[in-house]
C-alpha cells in the first residue's frame, strides 16, 4: 500500500470515527429527552400520590374524631340508662321513661351524625337509625383508612395505581446509559486523536502503530456501545 493510499485510508477512518462519535452524542441527547419525560412522570405521580395520601389521612383523622364524639354520646346515653334504672327502682317510672327516651334520642342522633359524616357506611347503619344499638359500633382506624383508599382508587376519575418510584428508576437507568454513551464519545475522540497522529506521522512505524490503536479503539468502542448502552 502506497503512502498516498495509507493517508487516504486514515482520512476515511477519521471521518468514520467522527461520525460514530456524533452518532453516540445524538443518541445520548435523545435518551436525555426520554429521561426528562420520566422525571416529569415521576414527579407528577408523586404529587398525585401524596395528594391522595393527605386526602385519605385527613379524612380518616376527621372521621376518627367524629367517632370520638359518637362514643361520648353513647357514654352519656349509658349514664342516662343508669339513671333510668335507678329512677325505676325508686318508683319514679315517668322520670325513668324520660331518661330512657333521652338516651335513645342521644344514641339515634349520634348514629345519624356519624353515618352522614362518613364514619360508618350509611347502608351499614341503616337499621340503627330506626333502632340504635345499645352499645357503640366499633371503629378500626387502619381498616377505615384502607376503605377510604379503596374508594379513591376505584373512582372513575382516579388515575389508578401509581408508581412514581418506577419512573424515577427508569430515568436513572437511562442516565446510566447516557453516561456510557458519553464515555464512548470520549474513547472515539481518543481514537480520532490516534488516527490524527498516524496521519501526520513521518515514520511508518508510528503511522502503523497509531493507526492500529485508533482502529482498535474505535471498533471496540463501537461494538461495546451498540451492544450495551445504545
Amino acid at each position, binding site marked *: 500500500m502506497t503512502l498516498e493510499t495509507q493517508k487516504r485510508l486514515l482520512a476515511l477512518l477519521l471521518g468514520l470515527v467522527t461520525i460514530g462519535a456524533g452518532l453516540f452524542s445524538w443518541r445520548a441527547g435523545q435518551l*436525555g429527552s426520554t429521561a426528562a419525560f420520566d422525571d416529569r412522570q415521576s*414527579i407528577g405521580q408523586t404529587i398525585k400520590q401524596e395528594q391522595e395520601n393527605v386526602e385519605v389521612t385527613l379524612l380518616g383523622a376527621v372521621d376518627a374524631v367524629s367517632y*370520638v364524639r359518637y362514643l361520648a354520646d353513647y357514654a352519656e346515653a349509658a349514664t342516662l340508662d343508669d339513671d333510668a334504672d335507678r329512677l325505676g327502682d325508686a318508683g319514679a317510672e315517668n322520670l325513668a321513661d324520660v331518661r330512657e327516651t333521652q338516651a335513645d334520642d342521644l344514641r339515634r342522633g349520634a348514629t345519624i351524625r356519624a353515618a352522614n359524616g362518613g364514619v360508618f357506611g350509611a347502608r351499614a347503619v341503616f337499621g340503627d337509625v330506626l333502632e340504635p344499638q345499645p352499645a357503640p359500633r366499633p371503629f378500626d382506624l387502619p381498616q377505615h383508612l384502607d376503605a377510604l383508599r379503596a374508594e379513591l382508587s376505584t373512582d372513575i376519575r382516579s388515575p389508578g395505581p401509581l408508581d412514581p418510584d418506577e419512573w*424515577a428508576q427508569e430515568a436513572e437507568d437511562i442516565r446510566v446509559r447516557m*453516561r456510557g454513551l458519553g*464515555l464512548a464519545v470520549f474513547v472515539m475522540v481518543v481514537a480520532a486523536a490516534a488516527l490524527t497522529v498516524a496521519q501526520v506521522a513521518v515514520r511508518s512505524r508510528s503511522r502503523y502503530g497509531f493507526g492500529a490503536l485508533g482502529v482498535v479503539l474505535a471498533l471496540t468502542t463501537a461494538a461495546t456501545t451498540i451492544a450495551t448502552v445504545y
Partner: protein
Amino acid sequence: MPDDGARPPRPTTGDGTDPPRPVVTRDPAADVPPDRPPPPDADEDAPYKRRVGILLALLAVLGAWIGILHTNAATNESNIARETTRTAVIAQASAVVEQTVLRLVEQVQLEADTLGLRPTFTGDPSEIPGLDGADAQPRLSEAQQAVTQALRRDPDTLHELKRTARRRSLTQAALTETRITWNARASQYQTVLTTLGIAIFLVGFTLVLSRRIRPPILIPGLALAVYCFGWAVLIYLKPIPSTAPAAIDSTAQGQTLFDDGQITEAITAFDDAIAADGDYLTPHEDRSIAHFVAANPDFFATGAITDTDGPEFAAALDDAKEALALGGDQSVTTMAVSGLLAFADGDYDTAVRRLTAAAGLNDQTPGVLFYLSAAETARGNADAADRWRDRAVALLDESEPSDRNRQLAAAYYSALEWIAHDVPEQAGAAYEKRDELIALETSFIAGERVSGTAPADATLVINDIVVGDGTVDFDLDVDGIAADDTVTLLAYERPVPDSPWVQPPTLSYIGPLVAPGSAPPLRAERVCRSTEFRVDLYVNGAPADSATAPGVEPTC
C-alpha cells in the same frame, strides 16, 4: 508569399474556421530543476504543522474528557433535582398530616376533658330523687377513658408521625444542597469548555501565521489549555456534599424528642447523628440549643437564663462554634442561636455581630431584632437599640393581640432585665426602653393610644402566690384605679438568688379591671420554682406601683 515584413495570414480550414490549436504538454520536472531546493517555508513548517495537529488532537481529547465530566454533573443534577422535588412534595404532605393529626388528637383529648361539663355527668342530686351526684364520677371517668382510648392513641405512633415529617424535611434540605452543588459544577465545566475552545482557537490560529508572530499567540493558547486542565481537575476533586441517611434519621429523632421535652434523649440522638456524619450542620445547631435548654430548662417557657457557667452551657457554646465552622454563617438559625449564646455569655460585641448577620440573612425575625436592641443597650448604643426595637415592632402582627406578640415582648423585657443586672451602668437605659415598649403594648391591646399618666394613688398588693408542681398562681389586689383606666400587670420572677428577673409571657394582664379592687389572677406553667416574685403595675401605660414577694427554694 511576399516577404514584406507583414504578419502572415492565419491558416484557416476549408470552411473558414480556425484550425485546432496544438496541445502543448510540459514536463513538470522541466520547470523545477532537480538540483533546486523546495521553498524554504514549506519544509520548515511541516514538522510544526504536525506538532500542532497532534496538539490539537490532544486538546480535543481534553475537551471530550471535560465534556464527559460536564455530562455526568448535568445528569446527576437532573436526577437529584427530580428527587428533591419529589421529597419536597412528600415532606410537605407529611407536615400537613402531622400538624392536622396532632391538632385532632388534641381535639379528642379536649372532648374527654370536657365530658364532665355535660349535665348528665354533673348529676345534680336535687333534680331527681334517688340520684347522687357522686355516682356520676365513676361513669365520667369510664367515659373519658373510653373516649381517650377510642383511637387506640399510641404515643409511639404520634412520635413516629412527627419523626417521619422531620426526616423528610431534613432529607429534602440535604438533597437541595447536593443538587445546588451539581448544578454549580455543571456550570463550571461549561465555563472550562468555553475557555478551552479559546485555547484551541489560539493554538490552531498559529498554523496560518508566519513563524515570527507565532509565539505570542501559541504560548497563551498553551497556557490556557494547561490552565483549563488544572481547573477541570480541581473542580473534579471538590467534594460533593452528601448527608448520611443515618445522620438525617437521628437528627429527626432528636428534633422530635426535643419537641416532646426529652432534652437528654434528644442530645443523645444528636450525638448519634454527629457520629454518623460529623460534617452535618443541623445536629450541631440543634445540639447547641438542646445543651442550652438542658442548662436553662425554663428558657422557652419564661425566658429564664439560670446557668451560663456549667458544662452544658460550655457544650452549647462549643456546638455553636462547630456549627459556624460548618457553614452555619449562612444559616439564620445558627447565627441567631450563636448570637443568643454570646448574649447569655455576656459577650455583647459578638452577640451584636452574629445577630446582625442573622438579621441580614432574614430581616423578618422580630425575636432576633429585639435581642439585638437589648445587646446594643448593653453596649451603650441607645440609638442603635431604638432602631432595632422599632424595626422589630414594625414586624409585629397588628391585626389583633396575639400570643406571639406577647411572647416577643416578654422576651424583650427579660433581655432588658438581664442587661440591667449584668451591665448596671446601662440599667437606666434598659428600664427606659422597657417602659416605652410596655406603653406601646398596652396601647396596642387596649386598641387606642393610652394617656401615659397614672393615678397618683394607684397601689398594688400581692395577697398570695401559690407555687405548685409546674405552675405558679398569683392573687393580687389593686386600688386607686378608675373604671376607664387601662391596667397593665406584669409579673416577674427570679429563678435563682441574685439572678436577673424574667418576665414569663403568661404572667401578664392588660385591660380594664373587671372587679374593682381585685386584679385578675395570673398563672404560668414552668419547670423551675423561683426564689422571688415581683409584680409591676402600670396604669394607662405609665408605671404606678411595684411589689415583691418571696418565692420558694429554687429548683434550677
